[in-house]
């Protein structure tokens, strides 16, 4: 049994069926879109189903939904203050969406949407422009005080402002690359270790299959680590969103 082992193959996007045509570009419904849709439907069913009863003593499902709510609400409140709670739906949606996509990606043979930088970049840019537009609407030109630290001598101020602006603009990059690269690297690592088992088994016969227990053990450990990373990266994405939103709500004076 020879398997073509390509660790990148799992990230390939397949067109499932065409949807529309804009100019010469065909817009197709891809496996990526299918998994995103699955995540949205799964989340909707979970949250609607969990909160439908509204019991005082929660069922397991309702308890899970309440834990998710409390977890995100605490994060938002602790980083942006109670004023930031108007962004709670936004942060909650992002957190649950990313978390669900990460968790779905852990299921064997499934597709990890968040391992594509276009998806994470779109999310990060949404956050970036939300911060920019809300900050400008809320504070007008005072928002640009964000780039002017207090107590800086006037002769190096232009330099500092330029550096602060570049630092601000570089945010969506580090924001999106972190999630994308973590998911990509983790899934490639899992695939490579899994392919070791196949290569050992097909190459060395019985001894190989016995030796394959070692990479198998490694996969078990790595899978636990990946589960942690999937949750942690969703959390990091959400908390960074909160930190950036905080700048829009309270730009430095």
């Amino acid at each position, binding site marked *: 049994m020879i398997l073509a082992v390509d660790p990148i193959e799992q990230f390939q996007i397949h067109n499932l069926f065409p949807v529309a045509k804009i100019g010469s570009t065909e817009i197709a419904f891809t496996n990526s879109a299918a998994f995103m849709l699955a995540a949205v439907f799964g989340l909707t069913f979970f949250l609607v189903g969990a909160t439908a009863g509204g019991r005082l003593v929660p069922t397991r499902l309702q308890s899970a939904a309440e834990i998710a709510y409390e977890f995100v609400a605490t994060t938002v409140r602790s980083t942006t203050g109670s004023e930031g709670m108007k962004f709670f739906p936004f942060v909650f949606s992002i957190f649950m969406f990313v978390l669900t996509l990460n968790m779905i990606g852990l299921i064997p043979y499934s597709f990890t949407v968040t391992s594509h930088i276009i998806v994470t970049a779109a999310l990060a840019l949404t956050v970036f422009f939300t911060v920019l537009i809300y900050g400008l609407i809320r504070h007008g030109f005072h928002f640009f005080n964000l780039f002017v*630290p207090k107590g800086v001598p006037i002769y190096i101020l232009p330099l500092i402002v330029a*550096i602060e602006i*570049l*630092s601000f*603009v*570089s945010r969506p990059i580090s924001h999106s*690359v972190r999630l994308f690269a973590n998911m990509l690297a983790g899934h490639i690592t899992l695939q490579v270790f899994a392919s070791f088992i196949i290569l050992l088994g097909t190459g060395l016969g019985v001894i190989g299959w016995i030796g394959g227990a070692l990479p198998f053990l490694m996969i078990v450990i790595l899978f636990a680590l990946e589960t942690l990373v999937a949750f942690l990266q969703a959390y990091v994405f959400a908390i960074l969103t909160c930190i950036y939103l905080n*700048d829009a709500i309270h730009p*430095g004076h």
Partner: protein
Amino acid sequence: MADGTRDQGNEPPDDEAALSARLQRLGERLTTASRPSENDSDPRQTANASAYARGFRMSTELVAGVVVGAVIGWLLDRWLGISPWGLIVFLLLGFAAGVLNVMRAAGVVRERHLND
């Protein structure tokens, strides 16, 4: 939910303030628990994961600053025809911004809003 038996707090457990205080304490305990500790079952693994995550965060922050500086400099060069000065200046500025990002991420420099 757990009742107040294993909690040293003396407030009633159904009080919302007490609940949020407990949640916060749980969050603090979780953050300390996620750091590498000696009594963990596999300390090397968690230490590696945590250090890896930290290192990864720092490197993306630095690289993001440099990349943004390079892209802006390159675009300015193309639009204004001042090659190579845009790239030189903005690459240096981008590097400075990257270092600033890393220092903010590491907590060496406090975030702006925490000063006030």
